[in-house]
């Protein structure tokens, strides 16, 4: 009797199936969107928070439709900040990790500064940022960069410090130059860790931009949310929040797709 092996244990999770990557990723996103809406409606039904604390999806959809152009404009501003922050922050973070991976002494000195950069709350930083960068797009991007930077640097550095010692031995007998070892061995071997950091950063970038907008802004979803909150337009605030969540999910999805190549 022919017995094509039945999987007893799930096969390697990254094994690609038959459908093209995009479809396989977009379908889940739709499911995900529905899941969020369902959760939301569920919370509204079960916990029954008053509408001025958490309005139901319907009210928010109505606000979304009624303020589509307004929200789109602010959303676009935030989107640019997110993209700029993500690219710059990831680049700086990766560069920092590589720099720190070279020298234990540098790590001892710089790690606290990295930690410091995350430990200082925005409102302490905000006046400094605006003093240096003014009120344009710069402080928002700076904030997104700051928030993206750390997980990328930290996760990538962890990976760079875990290079298989066998490869390092090999490099040593090959009389390799440290820079070359970094580029040809340690960095490629640590790419999965970089991907891990980037996936985290993708989630943090939008909230970073929004926080940057609180520092001082006249545009963006963060600004719109604060404004709507101040005007007791809770439905509008949640509509903007909804767009922010969608933007975050989309960023995470895109970065996730890009990162599959690094794993």
């Amino acid at each position, binding site marked *: 009797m022919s017995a094509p092996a039945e999987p007893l244990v799930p096969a390697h999770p990254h094994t690609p199936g038959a459908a093209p990557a995009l479809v396989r990723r977009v379908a889940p996103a739709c499911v995900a969107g529905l899941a969020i809406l369902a959760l939301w409606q569920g919370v509204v039904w079960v916990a029954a928070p008053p509408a001025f604390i958490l309005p139901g999806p319907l009210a928010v959809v109505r606000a979304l439709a009624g303020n589509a152009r307004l929200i789109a404009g602010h959303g676009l501003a935030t989107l640019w900040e997110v993209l700029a922050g993500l690219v710059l922050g990831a680049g700086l973070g990766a560069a920092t990790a590589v720099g720190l991976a070279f020298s234990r002494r540098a790590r001892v000195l710089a790690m606290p500064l990295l930690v410091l950069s995350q430990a200082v709350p925005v409102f302490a930083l905000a*006046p400094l940022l*605006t003093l240096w960068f003014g009120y344009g797009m710069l402080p928002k991007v700076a904030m997104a960069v700051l928030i993206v930077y750390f997980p990328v640097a930290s996760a990538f550095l962890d990976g760079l410090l875990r290079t298989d010692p066998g490869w390092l031995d090999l490099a040593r007998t090959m009389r390799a130059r440290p820079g070359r070892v970094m580029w040809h061995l340690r960095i490629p071997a640590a790419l999965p860790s970089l991907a891990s950091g980037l996936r985290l950063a993708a989630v943090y970038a939008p909230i970073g931009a929004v926080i940057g907008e609180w520092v001082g802004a006249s545009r963006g979803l963060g600004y719109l949310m604060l404004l709507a909150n*101040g005007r007791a337009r809770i439905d509008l605030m949640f509509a903007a929040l909804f767009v922010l969540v969608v933007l975050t999910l989309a960023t995470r999805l895109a970065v996730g797709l890009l990162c599959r190549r690094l794993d």
Partner: protein
Amino acid sequence: ADHLTVMLDWFVNPDHGPIVIAQEKGYFADEGLEVETIAPADPSDPPKMVAAGRADIAVSYQPQLHLQVHEGLPLIRVGTLVATPLNCLLVKADGPIGSIADLKGRRVGFSVSGVESALLTAMLGSGGLTADDVEMVNVNWSLSPALMSGQVDAVIGAFRNFELNQMALENVPGRCFYPEEAGVPAYDELIYVANPERMDAAVISRFLAATEKAVQFIVNHSQESFRIFAATAPELDDALNARAWADTVPRLALRPAALDAGRYARFEAFMAGAGLIDGTLPVSRLAVDTGAVGEPAQ
């Protein structure tokens, strides 16, 4: 004793003097009340918590009340804490802004509230300007630093009893343009709000009576009342609060329960005119005198 949860509008500061003093001097206890105060970090939360039934009384702002009632929050003003506007348009005393008209082409910072742009627009109108003549920037957490460091030329939303003193202490003296002198109808900056569907008018009357006694004590014994206030928490005992205390005392509502219906009607009209609300509601939907006999809140 009846338990009463009171949410302040923000962290404890001299604006809350009557509540703190009533607590410390035992006036609440005298009225058979057991009052718990809670300080939030976001001033827009307390009215929501009262509307949601998580607190009995919230300290809020009159302009906010108009917005919130129009958005359907079950809220009503039951008393007054500070009976004048505190908000002001703040500039550097030695800066280039000598009059409101000088703001043309300048940058004005504001904080979270949505009302402030309406106030500013009205004030600009008194100087012959429109909202398009200035650039509005949300500076959120740092009103006075933004002004002092020259990032903006003016800020709206600063409190005259605080930010002025704060700037003086930093040796960057400031100057206020007062909304009520520049085209904005006078309003009550700090009010007590409650949920009309849940509130017990009699208990609230007793609460207001206690704070009235506290206001009297503060007005009569300004120095001593500040010492009592400052002794409640170590972080309250500093030079700024001492100066702010002195500037706050004359603005406290001497009759917390008293309702000036016309003031609410005028501000409702102002808000409608500024396009912040659709139509106007009767004052009875906005405010109530809990002590008025035989006149239940509608």
